[in-house]
Every structure is written in structure tokens, then in C-alpha cells.
């Protein structure tokens, strides 16, 4: 199983998320996907030198601000806990996810380093 597959499988355990291995064509609230960020070739394990960092993007509801905030408050801990089972969670931050039509949707992204497997 690849790191990307492991991330998607972990996201699948979080209620309300619809994970995909790549960025969906039309993200909707609950969409979640991993995106490769950087690979470092120092600080790895004996079995493999490369250390890959991923961002996991999660789309939040956009109807009313209260719903966005409440969903984020509940979802962040669940996503971080799920991802912690497949890697080391480094940070999380709010993001505005830009769509193809130049509109944006609220969301958050979680950076993690998947464990070697």
C-alpha cells in the first residue's frame, strides 16, 4: 500500500468525509484528498532515505460562517487522529480552496509525514 492509499484509507474512517486519491474535479463540502508537498533525502530511515510530506485538504461547508466554524472545530480533531494512525501529523491551518471558476471554498489542510511501511 502506498502512502497516498494509506492516507485515503485513514480519511475514509472519518464520518462525513469523501476521500479521493487526487484533487476532485468538483470539490464539495466533505471532499478530502492528499497532495504531495516535498521530499527530503536526509533524516529518513535505514530502509528508505526519502521522507515525503503530504498536505491533506478538507473542504468545509460554505453556506453560513457558523456552520463552517462548527464543522471545522469538530472535524479537525477527527482528521488529525485518523491521520496520526498512518503518520506523524505536523500542523494544520485554515485555507481558502480555489476552484476552477475562481470561486473559493473554506477548508483546512493538515500536513503529515506518513510512516514507512
Amino acid at each position, binding site marked *: 500500500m502506498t502512502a497516498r492509499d494509506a492516507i485515503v484509507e485513514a480519511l475514509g474512517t472519518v464520518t462525513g468525509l469523501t476521500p479521493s486519491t487526487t484533487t476532485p474535479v468538483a470539490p464539495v463540502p466533505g471532499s478530502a484528498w492528499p497532495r504531495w508537498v516535498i521530499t527530503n533525502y536526509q533524516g529518513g*530511515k*535505514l*530502509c528508505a532515505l526519502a521522507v515525503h510530506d503530504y498536505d491533506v485538504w478538507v473542504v468545509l461547508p460554505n453556506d453560513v460562517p457558523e456552520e463552517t466554524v462548527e464543522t471545522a472545530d469538530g472535524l479537525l480533531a477527527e482528521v488529525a487522529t485518523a491521520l496520526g494512525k498512518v503518520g*506523524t*501529523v505536523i500542523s494544520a491551518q485554515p485555507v481558502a480552496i480555489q476552484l476552477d471558476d475562481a470561486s473559493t471554498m473554506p477548508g483546512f489542510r493538515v500536513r503529515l509525514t506518513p510512516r*514507512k*511501511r
Partner: protein
Amino acid sequence: MASPEPDTFDLGPGELTIGQTATPVDVSCLVNNAKIAASKDQGDSTTKLCGTVKPGRVTYTYALSGNVDTDIADSAGLFALSQDHAGEEMDFSFTPSTEAGTEATGKLIIDPLDFGGDTMGDPMVSDFEFAVTGKPTYTYATTP
């Protein structure tokens, strides 16, 4: 004519297995660093009546040391092995660089790994130093 520069290698990718010969545990993906080092022990020199000084006997002891992530949830992993078989002799095989191909094999005395960590949110790790029984055997990759 200058001598050709000898090849040197970085640590990793490589392999480390520890355990009984038939059922070794491959811990390569836990290892942050590892090396075999020798400690020298030299006895006192003695001066003979004629004035000759005889150096003390030199002996070396070897240890495999380093740092590993601790797989505390795996009952068949290195952490469990170190706890369940603490003080026991185990076979090991260590290849610090598959490119270099040189392999060290032998027997070591496994000691318990640490349980827990220093910093919240960081991977739990443990330093280790396993005494090698006797001397490790080094097998060099054959050169063409």
C-alpha cells in the same frame, strides 16, 4: 600516477534484522541511525627486570548502537522483542548501505527499548546499545 579515490558511501538505504535465525525481525524502517563500534581495553604495561617494557594485552568489545522509532503497538515488533527477550542472545544482520553491499552478522544481547517519548507529538524513539557477542563477521561484496 595518483591512486584512485576509494569509494565511500552514505548511511542508507540498508537493512537491519534482529532475532532468531528462522524468524528475524526486519527493523530497517524503524532505524534512524545505527553503527557497530569497538571499545578498546588495554591492560597495564609491565617493565621487566632487564628494562624491557611489555605492553598490556589489548582486547576489543563490540556493540551495535543507534536510535530507532519504537513500534509499541506491534506484539511481533522490535519493542516487544526487546521486552520479552531482554538479556537474551539474538542473531543480527546489518547492512548500512545496500549499494556498498558489506554486511555485518553475528550475535548480540538485546536490551529493553524505552517506552514513551520526550516531546508531545513527536515520534517515540529509543536509543539502544546492544553488546555484540565476540566479534562481528564482515562479508564484503565481491568486486567484479
